[in-house]
C-alpha cells in the first residue's frame, strides 16, 4: 500500500479509533517512527526530498 493510500485510510478514521494503531503498525519502520514522534517532516521526506521546506524558497498559504 502506498503512503498516500495509507493516509487516505487514516483520514477515514475517527480520532482515537482502534484501527488507527493497526494501520500505523502495518507500515514501514520509518512511517511508524514518523507517527510515534509526531514528525510530519519525516513523513514528507518519505515521499519527496524536494518539498518546500527543503529548499526554503516558498512561503505557505493559509
Amino acid at each position, binding site marked *: 500500500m502506498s503512503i498516500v493510500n495509507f493516509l487516505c485510510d487514516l483520514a477515514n478514521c475517527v480520532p482515537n479509533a482502534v484501527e488507527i494503531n493497526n494501520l500505523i503498525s502495518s507500515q514501514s519502520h520509518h512511517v511508524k517512527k514518523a*507517527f510515534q514522534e509526531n514528525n510530519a517532516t519525516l513523513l514528507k521526506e518519505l*515521499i519527496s526530498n524536494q518539498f518546500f521546506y527543503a529548499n*526554503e524558497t516558498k512561503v505557505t498559504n493559509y
Partner: protein
Amino acid sequence: MSCNTLVVVGTGIKFMSHLTTEAKVCIEKADKVLYLINEPFMQEWIKSINPSSESLDALYTKYIDRDDNYKLISEFVLKNLESTKLLCLAIYGHPTYLAQPVIYSVNSALKKGFNVFILPGISSIDCLFADLGIDPGTGGYQSFEATDFLIYNRAYNSSCHLVLWQISVIGLKKIAKNYNPKKGLDILTSHLNLKYPLSHPVFLYEASQYPSLKANIKKIQLRDLSKSNISRITTLYIPPKQEKKINQKILKIFRSLNINDN
C-alpha cells in the same frame, strides 16, 4: 470563450481530512487542474485523480520577487482558462487566505468575463481556533501578516486574540534561501513589548497536516520568541492581555432601549 469557468478550491490543511466534497468533485471533474500545494501527498493524490493536473511550483519560484511570481501564475491561469471549459485551481488551505496569486487570477478572469467560483477550504486559523479552544467571537480577534503588521504599524487591541502570520519571513519581500528569522523576530518582540510584558505567554502554532498527527503547539514567553525554533508554517498566537472594558455610555443607551436587560 467567455463561458469557460474557473473554480478555485482550497484543499485544507490536513491531508484528505479537510478536503470538502465540493472541492473533491471539482478536482476530479475539471478538464484541467492547476495546483499550488505545499504538501507532497496531496500533490500525488491530485495527479492520480486527475491526470490533466499541472503543478504551479516552478512559476512560484521563478523570479526573486514574490509578487512577480504571483503575477506570472495569474497570467498562466488566464492562458489556460482561455482554452479550458472547466479549469480548477487548487490551493493549499483556504484559497483566498494569504494567497495573492489566487486574487490576481480571479480578478483577471472576472475582468475578461469568465465565470468564477471560489470554494472555501479549511485554513490554519480554523485549526488554531479548534486546537487552542478559542472562540474568536468572545473578545474579538485580529490577525495580520507579520511584516505588514510592523511596516504599517497596524493598530491592534491587546484585549483581543491576536494572530500573526508568516513570522519566519519578517521583512523578506524576495525569495531567499536559508533566511534567518531571528532579526525579524527581535523587531517583532520589541514592537509587541509596547503593549505586552515580556513575560506575556504566546503560542507558536503549526496545524497538523496529516490525519492522526497532532498539531505542534509551543507555549513560550514573549521574551523567548526570537530564541525559538520557527518553521515556515509557524503562526504566532497572542492571547488577550486584559479584560474587556465596558463602554458604560453605550450600555446605558442599550438599557434605555431595553436591548440589554442585565
